[in-house]
């Protein structure tokens, strides 16, 4: 097997490449050739294809998400805005809070336990990478019909996965949602949120600067997780044997992640990192290109130094591996020794894999031979952007006209009784204790409010009682009826839930779960929801600080209900003044606010 080096690519410009199998479009492949002025090497093709995927590049959603910045309300609270791993909000007393919600929908359908578990793991690393100690998680979930046989497979697995991972990390679960609707049958929604706390001066960003600084990969060894797609590269370009069978499923190791958290926090405490990035969806491709793209110089990486779990991995596979529980840090040479010592203390494997250069290229080597030479921005931040066509569906009017007034009314006491019983015993109204009992809500000893409260609340300073509250809400049925109003209702509900707990709402994160962006109906729903959230946030004075877009949520041609899930974060000076939902004592008066 010959290595597809940069030099080799220059000399073999006409070699056909499996760009389509990797999900690239003809014009995207052409653009890569134009950027490089030659054909990409296999490793470069691997990087571009993952980084330009919908999941990493937001190519269909970007034009709409821009409104969150353009219409952002004036606020002094925002310390770090959209674009970083997670937004950071000033909550006073020198504290900053970061929070973000992400989806892990498709993996959770394939392998519910591991899909949900690694979803929690991923969002926790995002929060950690900002410099924060993760302090709580939440999990808005949506499943198919409660009595459908496949729900029996998916729901217990997802709940056990969320709990198994979060409990083992020691993160209290302070809220979430469980919704059943047949539209999620083949496509459950597993959204996970994490909240982290730090002091202002501890904020860290994902950028590689300072020529000579070292690039350190630390955490789990790299294995073949989640690289099903890229196997075609290993086979078709270099080797005519059949593609090696690689697991598409990522398996989580929460114990490793717990060590990674404690180790990273100790590294932050000693001020040993310049820039840091977690390894998420696109693994090393993403971490190296994003760090280099956001920084001032270039980067050089010796890929063969990456510690492997499976010695047979090709360089392309190493670049694309989605093995969990890994982080990448930029460290000044003088601090490397101490960095490695702390990793050793926590039994975390750490390896210097490269360094920041004074050039402007991302260069990757394999046993001394160059296999990647790209401008990092073109990989990480200047991917394709699509203006997908969208239009209000022609069925929308009929849907809206078909309102509840047309439904038969219960006639007489018996029918009314039956209707009331049906309502309160429906799975969407029933107690969620079967789920929430499997989640640790007490760990860390700072939980002020958790289930069955409308929002979760965490104390962040023991001496002053400063705290934060977070609520997540969403209603796909409302959003289907009218995506604009539905999205705003979700925002308003989360906002109210935070306010009702006694906290002042400060910031918003969202997870936009929609069908295929190639369907103009879906694209319209998406556009409407974005416009609604941007308008709503402006009106309420709470900026969107980050979030996640999950598209292609559909079974065959049928999309899920458009499901924007909105999280609102609020601050409360003194958690002893929180307002729980229960009546506190006899004789209290009930008021109804609003109309």
């Amino acid at each position, binding site marked *: 097997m010959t290595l597809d080096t940069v030099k080799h690519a220059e000399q073999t410009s006409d070699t056909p490449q499996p760009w389509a199998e990797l999900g690239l479009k003809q014009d995207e492949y052409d653009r890569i050739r134009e950027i490089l002025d030659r054909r990409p090497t296999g490793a470069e093709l691997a990087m571009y294809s993952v980084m330009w995927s919908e999941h990493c590049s937001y190519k269909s959603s970007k034009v709409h998400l821009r409104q969150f910045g353009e219409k952002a309300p004036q606020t002094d609270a925002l310390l770090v805005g959209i674009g970083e791993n997670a937004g950071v909000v000033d909550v006073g007393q020198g504290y900053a809070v970061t929070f973000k919600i992400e989806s892990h929908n498709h993996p959770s359908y394939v*392998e519910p336990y591991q899909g949900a578990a690694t979803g929690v793991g991923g969002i926790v690393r995002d929060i950690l990478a900002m410099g924060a100690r993760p302090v709580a998680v939440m999990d808005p979930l949506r499943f198919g019909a409660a009595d459908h046989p496949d729900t029996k497979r998916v729901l217990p697995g997802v709940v056990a996965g969320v709990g198994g991972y979060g409990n083992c990390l020691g993160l209290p679960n302070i809220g979430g949602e469980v919704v059943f609707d047949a539209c999620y049958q083949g496509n459950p929604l597993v959204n996970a949120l994490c909240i982290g706390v730090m002091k202002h001066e501890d904020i860290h960003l994902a950028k590689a600067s300072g020529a000579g600084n070292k690039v350190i990969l630390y955490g789990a060894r790299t294995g073949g997780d989640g690289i099903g797609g890229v196997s075609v590269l290993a086979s078709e370009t270099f080797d005519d044997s059949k593609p090696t069978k690689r*697991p598409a499923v990522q398996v989580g190791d929460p114990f490793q992640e717990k060590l990674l958290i404690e180790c990273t926090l100790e590294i932050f405490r000693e001020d040993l990192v310049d820039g840091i990035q977690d390894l998420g969806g696109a693994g090393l491709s993403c971490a190296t290109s994003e760090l280099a793209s956001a920084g001032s110089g270039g980067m050089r990486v010796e890929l063969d130094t990456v510690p492997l779990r*499976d010695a047979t991995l090709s360089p392309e596979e190493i670049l694309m591996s989605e093995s969990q529980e890994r982080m990448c840090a930029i460290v000044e040479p003088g601090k490397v020794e101490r960095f490695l010592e702390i990793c050793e203390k926590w039994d975390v494997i750490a390896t210097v894999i490269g360094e920041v250069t004074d050039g402007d290229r991302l260069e990757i080597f394999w046993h001394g031979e160059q296999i990647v030479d790209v401008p990092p921005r073109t990989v990480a931040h200047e991917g394709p952007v699509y203006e997908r066509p969208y239009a209000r569906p022609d069925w929308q009017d009929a849907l809206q006209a078909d309102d509840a007034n047309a439904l038969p009314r219960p006639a007489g006491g018996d029918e009314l009784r039956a209707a009331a019983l049906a309502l309160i015993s429906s799975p969407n109204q029933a107690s969620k204790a079967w789920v929430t009992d499997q989640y640790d809500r007490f760990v860390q000893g700072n939980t002020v409010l958790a289930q069955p409260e409308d929002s979760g609340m965490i104390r962040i300073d023991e001496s002053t009682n400063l705290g934060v509250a977070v609520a997540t809400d969403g209603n796909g049925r409302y959003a289907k009826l009218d995506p604009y109003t539905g999205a705003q209702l979700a925002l308003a509900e989360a906002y109210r839930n935070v306010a009702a707990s006694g906290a002042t709402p400060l910031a918003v994160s969202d997870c936009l779960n929609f069908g295929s962006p190639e369907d103009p109906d879906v694209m319209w729903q998406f556009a409407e929801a974005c416009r609604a959230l941007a308008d709503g946030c402006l009106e309420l004075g709470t900026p969107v600080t980050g979030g996640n877009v999950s598209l292609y949520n559909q079974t065959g041609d049928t999309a899920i209900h458009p499901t924007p899930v909105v999280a609102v974060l609020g601050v409360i000076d003194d958690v002893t003044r929180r307002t729980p939902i229960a009546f506190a004592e006899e004789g209290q008066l009930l008021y109804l606010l609003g109309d």
Partner: protein
Amino acid sequence: MARVVVDVMLKPEILDPQGQAVQRALPRLGFDGIADVRQGKRFELEVEGPVDDAALARIRELAQTFLANTVIEDFAVKVEEKQ
């Protein structure tokens, strides 16, 4: 009554955090010379009636659909000799 054993192991390419944790503990316990540890499950089924080909086929089916999660696990079925 005959005993049929179903062994379920993670596929070789899948991360096995449990096995790794065990392996990493071995040197501390003074054991070396063990290059790898994988941890899986063992099911012992007590079967009524004869364990013929039909019975084994049914147990294989059970392993495939229920005892193992074939997305990430392999399994092996064997009849255990009576002692």
